[in-house]
């Protein structure tokens, strides 16, 4: 127990990512594409009713949505900034541009995209990814989706995957209205309210009953404009007995001004349905990532969260699972890597309402070079959740003593007919393990990187191959940076 070793330090996915491991450069994520003023539409900095109306108009919102935005703005103005998380004094809302849109329409064909946007995504490997193994891709650039494509066979299954704007007015308008910010109401917290006021972009997915989508749907978000905010809304409804995997990736270049991401993800998992939601977040290190993700499961439904947090200056991220239906199930597998200048506050929340519901949390936190990583969670078992089972397992790996790692796991259990187990550990890389590996001819730096990758293995093994490779890249990158 004293020290932590990677379970399988040798399995550092060498075979998975041989090529990628060798030529990692931070530049891959930090490239800045100069946006030419005349090609982009922006609202003024800050947040006023005027700006909210302007966004609504620009987006051709239905009336109810304008009302919703204005109501959210009022709530935003009333709510206080959280007193418990990383300090967000550095974030000056008066200086955040809430809406930036390229003056290009959404394209379904990659070739039609403007060169600069295309280049940005090409560098991130988005279209290749799609060609190789994705059922559908949406790519958001700043505030709006610029590219959207769904594979024909998936479309023929009746799966709807579209941008939120089209969904608001299209065939599924009623369904969207019925679900939009019902799971995460604007009253939830200040940044949910902000989201409600200025949200833009994001995806809508509907999987009809009894449909199994074999290949993942993917969304990629990139925030390219300096001093901008991204507020995409993701709404996924998986109907009875269906099964789907959704992947989101996020990145942004680094500027000297703060950027803000306050997205919102709402997932509705129907009876006996199954949804896996994977995220690799690598926002640049000036990003305030105040993201809200929540899922609700009906009877027998399953939500699985896979979450890798590498980027951002500060993060508040706690995907929540509401286990409403009897026998519903949630799993959260997450890794957070806080390096220099980062304060990442991540975790999960599980709310058990239905009988015989179960939840598992398995997280790993790594901190280094003065980074602060906080694991924060709550497991709530209500009186109605007879037969509930919950288990939490969190490990923290500290790579030096100028960093900080905290574990703050709350539990609130209100029935005796529940089994709850919790285990947490904090430790460092074992000198013995490093020595052992070095004795076999591996350099110390390499050995340490391998151990960290091994520690992260429970998460990476849950990811599709190329995302696992990307994650290992990120770990290696973080390990190399001072």
């Amino acid at each position: 127990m004293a020290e932590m070793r990677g379970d399988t330090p040798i399995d550092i996915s060498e075979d998975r990512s041989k090529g990628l491991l060798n030529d990692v450069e931070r530049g891959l994520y930090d490239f800045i594409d100069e946006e030419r003023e005349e090609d982009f539409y922006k609202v003024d900095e800050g947040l006023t009713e005027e700006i909210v109306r302007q966004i609504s108009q620009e987006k051709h919102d239905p009336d109810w949505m304008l009302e919703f935005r204005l109501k959210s703005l009022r709530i935003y103005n009333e709510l206080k900034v959280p007193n418990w998380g990383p300090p967000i004094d550095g974030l000056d809302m008066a200086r955040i541009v809430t809406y930036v849109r390229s003056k290009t329409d959404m394209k379904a064909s990659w070739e039609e995209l403007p060169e600069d946007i295309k280049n940005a995504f090409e560098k991130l490997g988005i279209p290749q990814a799609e060609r190789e193994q994705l059922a559908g891709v949406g790519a958001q650039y700043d505030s709006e989706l610029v590219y959207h494509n769904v594979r024909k066979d998936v479309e023929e299954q009746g799966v709807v995957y579209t941008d939120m704007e089209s969904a608001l007015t299209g065939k599924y308008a009623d369904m969207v209205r019925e679900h939009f910010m019902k799971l995460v109401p604007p009253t939830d917290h200040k940044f949910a309210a902000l989201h409600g006021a200025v949200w833009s972009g994001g995806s809508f997915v509907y999987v009809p009953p009894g449909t199994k989508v074999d290949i993942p749907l993917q969304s990629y978000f990139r925030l390219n404009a300096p001093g901008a905010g991204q507020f995409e809304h993701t709404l996924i409804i998986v109907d009875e007995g269906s099964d789907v995997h959704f992947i989101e990736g996020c990145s942004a270049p680094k500027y000297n001004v703060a950027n803000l991401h306050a997205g919102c993800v709402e997932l509705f998992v129907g009876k006996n349905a199954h949804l896996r939601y994977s995220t690799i977040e690598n926002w640049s290190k000036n990003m305030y990532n105040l993201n809200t993700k929540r899922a609700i499961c009906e009877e027998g439904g399953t939500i699985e969260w896979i979450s890798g947090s590498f980027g951002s200056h500060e993060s508040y991220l706690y995907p929540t699972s509401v286990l409403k239906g009897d026998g519903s199930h949630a799993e959260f597998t997450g890794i957070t890597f806080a390096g220099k200048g980062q304060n990442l506050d991540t975790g999960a929340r599980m709310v058990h309402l239905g009988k015989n519901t179960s939840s598992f949390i398995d997280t790993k936190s790594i901190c280094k070079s003065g980074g602060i990583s906080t694991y924060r969670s709550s497991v709530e078992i209500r009186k109605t959740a007879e037969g509930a089972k919950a288990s939490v397992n969190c490990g923290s790996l500290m790579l030096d003593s100028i960093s900080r790692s905290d574990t703050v796991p709350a539990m609130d259990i209100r029935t005796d007919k529940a089994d709850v187990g919790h285990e947490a550990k904090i430790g460092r890389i074992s000198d013995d393990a490093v020595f052992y590996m070095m004795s076999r001819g591996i350099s110390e730096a390499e050995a340490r990187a391998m151990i960290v990758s091994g520690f992260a293995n429970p998460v990476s093994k849950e990811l599709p191959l190329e995302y696992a490779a990307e994650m290992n890249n990120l770990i290696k990158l973080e390990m190399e940076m001072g």
Partner: protein
Amino acid sequence: MEIRKKVNHLPVLTWNKLDFNEATLSADVTFAQKDYRKETELPEGMRLAGELDRAAFVKWSKEHGCETVPEAIVAGKFPMYAPEQFQTGMGAEIDDLLNDAGVKTLLYEVDGKIGTPVKFTYDYYEDAAAMESVLIHVKAGAEVTLIQYFDGLEGTKGFVGSSTRVYLEKGAKMHLIKAQMLPKDFIFFDDLGVKQQAEAEFTFTQLELGSRKAYLGACFDQIGEASVLRADLGYIGMPESFLDYNYVDTFRGKKSVGVMRFHGVLFDHAEKVSRETLDFRQYCTDAEGDEEEDILVLGDDIINKANPMILGEEEKVSGHHAVSIGKLSPEMLFYMQSRGIDEAKAQELMVRARIMEVAARIPDEEIYRQAGYYVDRAYCNRTDCNGLCK
């Protein structure tokens, strides 16, 4: 006087809506200038060295290196409550309360190795409202076992508060025992702050069996190298009772070791809020912290909240905590039943085991026996009592 104090602050805040960040001690009482502690003859090697008012106490703390230094709080990184002199588990507002009520701190000095336990028995034989504050200074190499036993006459009611601070010099050893078996209409608080210099060993055994409402706070500051802490809390949450506690073990010295164990039972309609923190400060290299909470829940209308935290500022440490909450496991029940013990009896045996495990750490026949009776009574008050316990 009306008491409304914010106590048991979570060292690092979390979501306000979970209602964990602090507790409120509230009561409306009139304190009588009356001493309910039975006369105890102090053994050789221990003496009452003075009565300190607040200013004198602060002065004493500074002189003895027990003042709150910047590195002793999670400085500036997180929103924090106001730090106090000689930090305790319940926090600064308890000192305010004692000061407002005119309670002075009794300073005891221990400079010998005292073999037999010193026992302070507090007997509330009538409706009572009383508080006491003691400061125990154990000199280098000295040893003492102090038992504080709170008992009362069944049917009386009241408010009882105990504030204890312990300063252990290098190599000093102390076993502090607090056993609370007050009648059910009492409100009780117990606030503890401990400073441990190098190689000092502190053992803390707390048994919480009585009172309708209890607030417990304990803050162990392991300043010195190779200091050792062992803390055990055993409690029974009777129906309609409320228990709120905050245990913090702060590791500052190299190779300091801390072990905390919590064994609890919650009957139906009981509420418990617990905060347990292992706090590893920078430079506490090779420190080891281990904490376990094991709660047996016996009723479907209960509130059981736990927040076991690990805070880490130093990489070269090892910290572990584990929580298990639930009913009697099916495996255990099967084992018991296979020896002819039915479910109700098996449950009682498990309740008894949890309490007696802690009671067995107390070197005092009377308390051990009383703890057993207490479990008997807990079952006697219940409908399934077969009268055997009488």
